[in-house]
């Protein structure tokens, strides 16, 4: 019995862990357009190129129009359960973009900014510089997935041995 309960609790925690990124996406900025490029302009790098949520990232770009404002955007997906009339029809992920910050190039067309990797789905996300619907340049950042378990709050443990 305790084994069944332990497995059930683990299952619930696992589901909560899966849902957590979607729930915390609200910490991102306002929605931004899913801009498309008309030929890329300039160069852009993110450093580091991967890391877990909370990682501070430095963005640098050059070769852009001088003294110009851009949206710095984090691209991801919005996930939802597809439930209709009490029937589960799987999951649905829709591409989405959120503003991280507005940034401005200097007189030489360069810019530098920092941001903190938000809680979000694992693996690749695009960090883009855009103006409205036009994407100028982008760079990929890979979110490393991580799990933290607090032993004091873990009701399983020895119960599995019983």
């Amino acid at each position: 019995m305790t084994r069944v309960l332990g497995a059930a609790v683990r299952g619930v925690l696992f589901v909560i862990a899966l849902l957590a990124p979607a729930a915390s996406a609200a910490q991102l900025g306002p929605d931004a357009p899913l801009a498309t490029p008309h030929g890329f302009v300039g160069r852009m790098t993110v450093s580091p190129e991967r890391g877990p949520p909370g990682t501070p990232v430095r963005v640098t770009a050059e070769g852009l129009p001088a003294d110009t404002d851009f949206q710095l955007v984090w691209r991801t997906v919005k996930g939802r359960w597809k439930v209709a009339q009490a029937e589960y029809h799987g999951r649905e992920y829709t591409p989405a973009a959120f503003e991280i910050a507005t940034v401005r190039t200097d007189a030489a067309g360069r810019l530098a900014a920092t941001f903190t990797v938000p809680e979000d789905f694992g693996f690749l996300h695009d960090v883009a510089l855009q103006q409205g619907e036009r994407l100028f340049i982008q760079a990929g950042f890979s979110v490393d997935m991580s799990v933290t378990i607090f032993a004091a709050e873990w009701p399983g443990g020895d119960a599995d041995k019983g």
Partner: protein
Amino acid sequence: MAIARTVFLALLLALGVAPLAEAQNGKPLFIAADMVRDRGGSGPACVLTSRFMRKEGVAWRIRVQDATGTELDDKSLKSVVVELSDGQKIEAHFKGHPPGDAPTDHFWSTSWKIPEDYPTGSFNYKVVATASDGTTQSWQPFNVKPSLLTVVAGTFEPAK
């Protein structure tokens, strides 16, 4: 009043019938495509993948069929083009694969070497086939990030 009614009817006909006539002339095309690593890359060629480093070659393999399932070659189609999200257009050609004396299959293909300064991240693309009568049909990969063309950090340095 009668003149106005006649002009109005003529306008309706012009707006409604032209697209109908166009649709009747166009023959439907069906496209299937995939993306593989080109020769000389970081691993074996012609292996399905969506992740590439800069300076690696991306190759697309494409089949185009008509409504009867007949494969359409370069005698039946005007062009097959891969369009990248940044607007680049890469023309495909119909030939035997693997290249050489004993091809085991024939299909449209093309390749593109990722420039050293290309941005990283994921990129959409589409394949556009144009029939000899001008009918076009486009195909896009599943809009799921891992399925899109992905340029990962790092630059591929071929073995010397």
